[in-house]
């Protein structure tokens, strides 16, 4: 178990020391929030900032996870993975350490977004509501980082992974319920948006904001998380022995 922590710590030290990467990761989502939340000439709802914040939060989690997916692949390419696999530490802790780090990094970014959103006029929620938002984001982060890490390991080279990454992230974001409510979407977009996994997390956070406890959605997310982790572990085992 402790192996997971030390693997996470290593990535954390490396991330924090690459100062530009930290700044970039924090500025990007804040910029999105400000430009889209405040500057977009159309508003679909009363407080558009409140409406768009969940979308930006989930998008940040997605971007951070997809970007973090490359970490394990690089460890493999640079020869670190072989060194780690020859250690007596349970091998799965390599994978879980990555997932933990990527999720923590996503949560740090999300916190910055929540602070910026509040500063520029989003409604302040109760501690319980914030807690629930974090729970959803963490579950979503684990799910995505597990998927991204395994996918990158499977794809194996950086160029291909970067292509897959771009191919997934942008369409997924624009066809979700992040930017506009279902009611104003054209029917074809509504059909896509309702089955988009991003919308699922976004809608759950919106329910929290409107005072509902989305037990069903959190439950489904949790179950999905466990299933995906189990699959990732299997793939990881098969790819590393």
């Amino acid at each position, binding site marked *: 178990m402790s*192996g997971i922590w*030390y693997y996470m710590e*290593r990535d954390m030290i*490396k991330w924090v020391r690459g100062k530009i990467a930290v700044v970039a990761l924090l500025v990007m989502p804040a910029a999105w929030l400000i430009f889209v939340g405040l500057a977009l000439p159309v508003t679909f709802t009363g407080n558009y900032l409140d409406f768009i914040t969940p979308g930006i939060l989930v998008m940040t989690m997605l971007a951070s996870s997809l970007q973090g997916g490359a970490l394990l692949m690089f460890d493999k390419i640079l020869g*670190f993975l072989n060194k780690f696999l020859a250690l007596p530490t349970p091998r799965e802790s390599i994978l879980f350490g990555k997932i933990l780090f990527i999720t923590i990094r996503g949560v740090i970014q999300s916190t910055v977004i929540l602070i910026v959103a509040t500063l520029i006029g989003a409604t302040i929620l109760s501690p319980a509501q914030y807690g629930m938002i974090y729970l959803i984001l963490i579950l979503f982060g684990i799910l995505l980082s597990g998927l991204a890490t395994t996918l990158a390991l499977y794809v194996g080279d*950086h160029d291909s992974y970067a292509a897959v990454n771009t191919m997934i992230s942008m369409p997924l974001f624009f066809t979700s319920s992040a930017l506009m409510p279902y009611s104003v979407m054209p029917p074809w977009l509504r059909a896509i948006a309702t089955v988009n996994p991003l919308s699922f997390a976004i809608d759950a956070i919106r329910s929290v904001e409107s005072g509902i406890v989305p037990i069903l959605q959190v439950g489904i997310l949790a179950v999905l998380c466990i299933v995906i982790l189990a699959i990732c572990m299997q793939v990881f085992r098969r790819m590393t*022995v």
Partner: protein
Amino acid sequence: MNAIETHDLTRYYDALCAVYHLSLTVNNEIFGLLGPNGSGKTTTVLMLTTLLTPSAGSASVCGYDVARDGEKVRRQLSYVPQDMAVDIKMTGRENVLFFAHLYGVTDPKGRTDEALAVMELTDRAGDLVKNYSGGMRRRLELAQALVHEPRVLFLDEPTIGLDVAARKKIWEHIRELRKNGMTIFVTTHYMDEADQFCDRVGIISNGKIMALDTPAALKSQLMKDVITARFSGTFVAPAIEGIRLIACNDGEVSFTAENGREALPLVAQALNRPGMTVHSLSMREPTLDDVFLHAVGNQEEPHNFDEHRFQTMLRRSK
């Protein structure tokens, strides 16, 4: 109980056989596995360190089977792969401490300082590895490997890409470790280093052990002196009693003889035939290079250099 033991260890990559019925016993010594590129050295190390499952046969490290008791095997060994993998954004101490934590040693801080001191890195332990030289990075990797006091140490090309002084230093450290009771399994391309520092060497070619003994014994099997002739023209192997041909390529041919001084004129005479001109003749004691060429034959690389395949390989290994 032997530190390393293999019985008919075999590994196939699809149809290609990388290691074929390899049987070895290694104990408290520096054992060098020598062989041309693609001969199965690294595959052997990967199987012994549980990073690759054998296709057939068995291997054990400190009495634990590599296929069944993976975790117990990994507790006994340390593995330093070829591609120097240390985190350059972390300090030397952080790099070693990270491994100390992962090995779960008691008193990780104390052990880290000890390992750094053994590798003479104490002065620079607080610097980022970014500022380390190649030799220091290699020593740092050794410190990482030593932090849990393994009984068996696997080193894949430990001195590749280092300058002469750094290489000598690495080997001195390895010797010191052997003195303290560790078993060290090394793969290397550098014959002179293997000759000088390994207690025993195994020469592997196409996955098979071709020669296995102490460097001195291997050299004495090749008789006493080596005579090398440089020539031009077509080479026809001469038959001279008491003189053996060991290798011939690119206008250079080597023989061994019990008594080089007496053999020298005989060789000169035999080579002096129409269609062939001898430019020079020299005589020296045999080195491990000669043993290697004799055991492996003159096969060079397994295939001719193929630009397209080389590019594909580079892209894959990225």
